[in-house]
């Protein structure tokens, strides 16, 4: 079962915060995380193991961090040439578009 490995790795924590953490809860949370992954990372057949979901989630977060970095650089260049009003206009346009 997918939850077995995660259970053993966190058994100490689970026993200390006892009753509320059931396998089913963990399974639901992992399913929620799997649903957040972009399509490319999800295998089309479900029943991916919990460890795999965690691994893909780590990669997904790392790629999101990289996107923020890249977009920050791009924005610093784009906004350098404009005044603050056009920057604010760009934000409002992006919300309305």
């Amino acid at each position, binding site marked *: 079962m997918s939850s077995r490995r995660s259970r053993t790795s966190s058994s100490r924590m689970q026993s200390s915060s006892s009753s509320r953490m059931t396998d089913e809860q963990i399974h639901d949370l992992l399913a929620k995380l799997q649903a957040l992954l972009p399509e490319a990372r999800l295998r089309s057949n479900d029943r991916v193991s919990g460890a795999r979901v965690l691994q893909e989630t780590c990669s997904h977060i790392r790629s999101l961090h990289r996107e923020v970095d890249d977009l920050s650089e791009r924005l610093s260049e784009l906004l350098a040439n404009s005044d*603050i009003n056009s920057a604010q206009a760009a934000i409002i346009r992006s919300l309305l578009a």
Partner: protein
Amino acid sequence: MENPNPKSLMAAFHFQRALSLVHRTASKSSRAVRGRRIQCAAYASMAYSAGPRRAWSRALLRRLRRAARRRQPRAGWRRRAAAGAGAASRVATGAAGLRRLVPGGGGMDYCSLLEETADYIKCLSVQVKLMQSIADSASLCGQL
């Protein structure tokens, strides 16, 4: 951005304020410094719009306030936080990897870690979409 929901509106509001601050205080700085300030602004506005209800946003806000108090915006604090884990963060996957990647992840129990991760990913995605549409909008119209 179709159907701006409250979350993305709040993120946009905070990010716009942070961008104004960067523009006011760093418009003469180098592009690299500005880029880092904007990167900090992105994480700060994410944390502000999530508010104190989430452990990850509280941890991020603590980290940012500590950096601000030191008065030296340490360059690439996010990169260094990730690089501090070094090769381990590249290799570490699973729950240990998540604890390094999600702010405040170190002190949580496993279930909370999973919940916080889900919320963190949602807010990160909103922030990325926001920055993408600003960049697209600015590059379309900014050069006129």
